[in-house]
């Protein structure tokens, strides 16, 4: 069952088209990254599927057709700045969330312990530091143990330790089989935590696919041995070789289609050379991202 199906969703602000005919399908269990530079329509898209921004046209469907309000009660969302009643305490604020999500208040203490706010549970929200406010919004999102978690720039404004914590948390939650939808402008972040992703630019979807696929191995292998000159002459005779480049004390072998690093390794071994280094080079999302942007220019 699809968690979310977006169909030709469009949002216009006057003359500006923020999101243009967006189609998207997110399946259960995916960690889905919506990747794009600032102003590419990520937050507007999230706003529309949460019904706080009215779409100009198009439609979307949660959980194969569950009514939108009921669907939102099954989604934990953390969007940009944490929003709570400043005159209420952490517990009082979470009671409101529990009431809205119809999930009961018995889990509040546990959740507050989990995000490390239990000691401050009876302090007013207005006295919280930014980090504590962010942790409270995390607590609110996790309170109902939702099957879907939605995050907008989850590591924005956090220190390196906080970033590592949030990423670990996303992986932990994903490991429980939950679906995660996140918007980010950080390639590295999407590469590290997402299973699937799409790229948005100026509201248009440029690419969609699995992270693993796009990050597969390249046909380039970095090799070296004790005697680099001997290696160069030998490898040049390798039939599966397309091109050979010398770089920083090692060689870069570009292999032909259908050839892989183990073929090369066996060939060298048969020629009596033991390789000191053999590194198949993998793609980085950054290279692919730039490539995709270029293709679409």
């Amino acid at each position, binding site marked *: 069952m699809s968690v979310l199906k977006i169909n030709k969703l469009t949002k216009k602000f006057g003359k500006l088209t923020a999101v243009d005919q967006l189609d998207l399908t997110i399946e259960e269990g995916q960690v889905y990254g919506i990747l794009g530079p600032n102003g590419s329509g990520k937050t507007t898209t999230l706003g529309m599927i949460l019904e706080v921004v*009215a779409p100009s046209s198009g439609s979307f469907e949660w959980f194969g057709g569950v009514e939108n309000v009921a669907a939102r009660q099954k989604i934990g969302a953390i969007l940009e700045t944490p929003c709570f*009643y400043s005159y209420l305490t952490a517990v009082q604020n979470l009671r409101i969330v529990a009431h809205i999500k119809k999930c009961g208040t018995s889990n509040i203490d546990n959740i507050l312990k989990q995000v490390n706010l239990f000691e401050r549970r009876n302090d007013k929200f207005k006295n919280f530091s930014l980090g504590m406010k962010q942790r409270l919004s995390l607590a609110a999102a996790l309170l109902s143990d939702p099957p879907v978690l939605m995050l907008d720039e989850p590591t924005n404004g956090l220190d390196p330790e906080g970033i590592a914590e949030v990423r670990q948390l996303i992986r932990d939650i994903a490991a429980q089989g939950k679906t995660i939808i996140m918007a980010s402008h950080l390639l590295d972040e999407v590469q590290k935590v997402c299973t699937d992703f799409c790229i948005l630019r100026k509201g248009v979807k440029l690419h969609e696919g699995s992270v693993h696929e796009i990050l597969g191995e390249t046909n380039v292998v970095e090799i070296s041995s004790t005697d680099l000159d001997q290696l160069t002459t030998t490898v040049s005779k390798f039939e599966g070789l397309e091109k050979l480049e010398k770089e920083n004390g090692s060689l870069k072998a570009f292999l032909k289609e259908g050839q892989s690093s183990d073929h090369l390794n066996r060939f060298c071994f048969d020629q009596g050379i033991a390789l000191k280094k053999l590194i198949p080079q993998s793609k980085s999302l950054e290279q692919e991202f730039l490539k995709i942007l270029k293709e679409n220019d």
Partner: protein
Amino acid sequence: MIRAFTLEWLKLKHYKVFWILFGLYLLAQLIITNGGIFFLEWLQSKEIDIEGIDPTILPIYDFPDIWHNATWLGSFVKILISFIIIVSVNNELSYNTLRQNIIDGISKREFLLSKLSLILFLAGVCTLVLFTSGLIAGFMYSHVTDLKYVFSNMEHLVAYFMQLVVFSLFAFSVAMVIKKAGFAIVLIFLYSMVFEPIITAILEFAPFTKDYTEGIVKFFPIYSIEKLCGKFYESPFARYIFQEIKEGPLWFEWIIPVIWAFIYLTFITWILNKRDLKS
């Protein structure tokens, strides 16, 4: 509706500002509706008389006149109830919690219902307090305590309740448009206590235009609300001097505020659906 009211209750029960404003309102209402006897005693102590009568023998607490007297007096402090509504609605917009609530899982309709339930609750409590304090004052001072008279002219209480509800909906509409609470309060104060009364007074009483414009004043938002319990110059106490006063709203004076209530609700719904809630 219970779910909507519970949501509102969770937001307000620990909110000091709300309890202070609500307490002040009830206190002001109590003083103005039940303080009459002290005023009359003060007049007596100054040896001021009304048409040759000792003021303290005026039957201001007599059943059923007390209901008309008290609701007319109570309307003078209704501006205070709009402060509560403005603060409550304004919080949702300035803390961005309206957006957060919707993301968490309510509809815009439920949000409207939760505020409406608050308005009905406040107006209900105020009317109930006025009724109770009226009963107590009446049984203490009234020359008539026959139950038939005690519970007659109850339409004044219905009119009072309606006045508070429609006025609160007016404040709700203003708060949805004007996002600064202080500015919204000043605006409501100026419009309902200064601008509209002056405009309607001119339309109603100016010698040259009166014949043409008299008929339209009853459609004005505040004028129609105030007509429910009598305009400030339609004092029920005039009955003690002239013997003749207007009792209760006419049929169209009931209908016009109801129409306004629908206009306010439609307007708020329209704004909620149209506006994008951005952070």
